[in-house]
C-alpha cells in the first residue's frame, strides 16, 4: 500500500469508516503503512446507522491518531429520493434505496479524495467481491483495495493479529458478526459440507453466496420462499473443499449480513 501511494505521488489516504471490520482493518493497515498524519477517516451515518457503529469508528480513529470527519448523508439521500419519486412511483423500496446511500458515500469520499489529493482506499474483501455483495460506484469506489484478496474469515484473523501487537480495533467490532437492521446468519460446517441458516426479518428474498471447490464456479443460492415459522430458511448443503490452506472451509456471505464459516 505504501508503495502504491508513494509511487503514484498521493498525499496520503482517505477511508470511509462504517464501524465494521473491513474498514477497521483497512484503516489499521493504512496507518501502519504510511503513518497517522497521512490518513483521514470519514464516517457518513444515515438514518439507519447504529450509534455503536459511529462510536466504534470514532474510537479506532482516536486510538490511531487519525483525523476524523462525520458527514451525515441524510440530506443527499433524501434529495435523491425526492428527485426520483416520480420515477419510482408504484414500485416497492428494495436494494435500490440501500445502494443510493452507498453511492452518496462513494461520491463524498471521491470528492474528498480529489480535493485533498489523498487516495481513496476501497475496503471490500474477497468474499464480498466473489458474491457481488458490494455496490457499484458506492462502496466499490476507490483507487486501491488492499484487502480485495482476503477472504472474510482471514479479515477477522488479521484484525485479531493486529490487535495482539497493540489493540487498535475496538473489540466490539470484532465480536459483532451481524449488523443491526439486517438479519442474523449462522453457518456451521464440517469437512466437505457447509450449511447456512438465517432468520428472516420480513424479507422473503435472501441471497447466499457460497464458494465451492476451486474447479467449480462460485455458487449463489436464492431462496424466494419462507419455509417455516419462525421464518427459518435452510440453504441446501453444498460440498465444498479446501480452497485456502489456512482455513479449510470457505466463507459465505449474503444479503442478510455476513457470517463466519467454521472449519
Amino acid at each position, binding site marked *: 500500500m505504501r*508503495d*502504491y501511494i508513494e509511487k503514484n505521488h498521493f498525499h496520503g489516504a482517505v477511508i470511509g469508516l462504517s464501524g465494521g471490520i473491513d474498514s477497521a482493518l483497512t484503516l489499521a493497515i493504512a496507518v501502519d503503512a504510511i503513518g497517522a498524519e497521512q490518513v483521514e477517516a470519514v464516517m457518513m451515518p444515515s438514518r439507519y446507522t447504529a450509534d455503536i457503529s459511529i462510536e466504534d469508528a470514532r474510537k479506532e480513529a482516536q486510538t490511531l491518531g487519525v483525523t476524523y470527519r462525520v458527514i451525515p448523508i441524510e440530506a443527499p439521500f433524501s434529495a435523491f429520493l425526492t428527485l426520483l419519486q416520480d420515477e419510482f412511483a408504484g414500485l416497492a423500496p428494495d436494494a435500490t434505496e440501500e445502494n443510493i446511500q452507498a453511492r452518496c458515500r462513494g461520491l463524498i469520499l471521491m470528492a474528498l479524495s480529489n480535493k485533498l489529493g489523498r487516495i481513496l482506499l476501497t475496503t471490500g474483501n474477497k468474499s464480498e467481491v466473489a458474491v457481488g455483495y458490494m455496490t457499484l460506484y458506492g462502496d466499490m469506489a476507490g483507487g486501491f483495495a488492499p484487502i480485495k484478496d482476503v477472504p472474510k474469515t482471514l479479515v477477522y484473523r488479521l484484525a485479531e493479529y493486529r490487535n495482539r501487537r497493540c489493540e487498535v480495533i475496538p473489540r466490539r467490532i470484532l465480536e459483532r458478526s451481524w449488523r443491526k437492521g439486517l438479519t442474523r446468519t449462522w453457518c456451521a460446517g464440517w469437512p466437505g459440507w457447509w450449511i447456512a441458516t438465517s432468520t428472516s426479518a420480513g424479507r422473503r428474498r435472501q441471497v447466499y453466496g457460497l464458494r465451492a471447490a476451486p474447479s467449480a464456479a462460485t455458487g449463489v443460492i436464492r431462496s424466494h420462499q419462507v419455509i417455516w415459522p419462525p421464518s427459518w430458511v435452510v440453504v441446501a448443503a453444498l460440498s465444498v473443499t479446501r480452497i485456502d490452506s489456512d482455513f479449510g472451509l470457505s466463507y459465505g456471505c449474503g444479503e442478510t449480513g455476513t457470517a463466519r464459516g467454521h472449519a
Partner: protein
Amino acid sequence: MSPLPVNGSAGLRIAMAQINLLVGDVSGNAQQIVDTALRARDELGADAVVFPELALTGYPPEDLLLRPGLHLHVLEAIERIKRTIRGITMIIGHPQQALGGLYNAVSVIRDGELLARGFKQHLPNYSVFDEKRYFVPGIDPCVVEIGSIPVGVTICEDIWTPGPAQQARDAGARYLININASPFHTGKGVEREEVLRDRVRETGLPILYLNLVGGQDELVFDGASLVMDDGGVVTQRGAACTEELLLVELDVVDGGIRPRPVECARLACVTTSRRTTSTVQS
C-alpha cells in the same frame, strides 16, 4: 588466473541487492543501481553485486516494453552504468533487443566491459505473468567467470524447471545466481525453498537467489532472498519486504563452493528520495 585452493576462501564477496525499483523510471533505477553498487564496493568490499530481474525497467513493465523509446533509455542506462562503475562486477536484469526479438536478459558488466549476457529461457505466462506477450525465449546458458570461479546466471522462472540449471552446470558453473522479480502469495517462501532444493539436488550446486522488493499495483515483491548451499541448507536469508544489501562470501570446501554469510555486513537500503521529493513537488 591462479587455480582455486581445494579448501579455503575463494576470495570472492558477492553483494545481493534486494532493492525497490520504480516501473518505467529507467534513469532513476539506473541511478539507484549505481548508488547501490558503490555502497557494495566501498562499504561492504564486495567483488560483485547482483540486481533483480528487469531491474532497469522495474517489474512488470508490461506494455511499456512495446514502446521503442523505452529500449533507447535502457541502452543509454547500460552505457552510463558501464562508464560510471569500476572495480566491481555487476549483474543486472534488463530487456534486450536482439536479432531474434526482445529478450528478458541479464548482463554481467565489469570495468566498462560486457562480460556475458544471458536470456531467460522459460517465460511465465500464467496467473499474473504474461511474458510471452513481450519476450522470445533464450536457449543458451549464461556462464561467466567472476573472480576465477565460473557462475551460472539464470533468471527467475528458469530456476523452477531443471533444464537451465543443468545446462549451466554442464557448461562449467560451480554455483548459480538466480535473479528474480517474484511476487508474493501465501506459502510462496516454502515453495521457493522446495524448488531451490530440487535444483541443488539435481546439480549439486549452491544457489544465490535474489528477489526484488516493493509494491507494484496489486503485486507485492517480498524480497526474502536466500542463499542455499549444496546440501540444500539455507545459509542466509534476506528480510521480507525490506530493502537490503546482503553479503555472501564464497569458500572452497573439498573442491566445492560453500557460501558463507557475512552477517555483520548487511546494509539497510533506503530508497532514494526521488519519490518523496516528487510528492512534495506535486
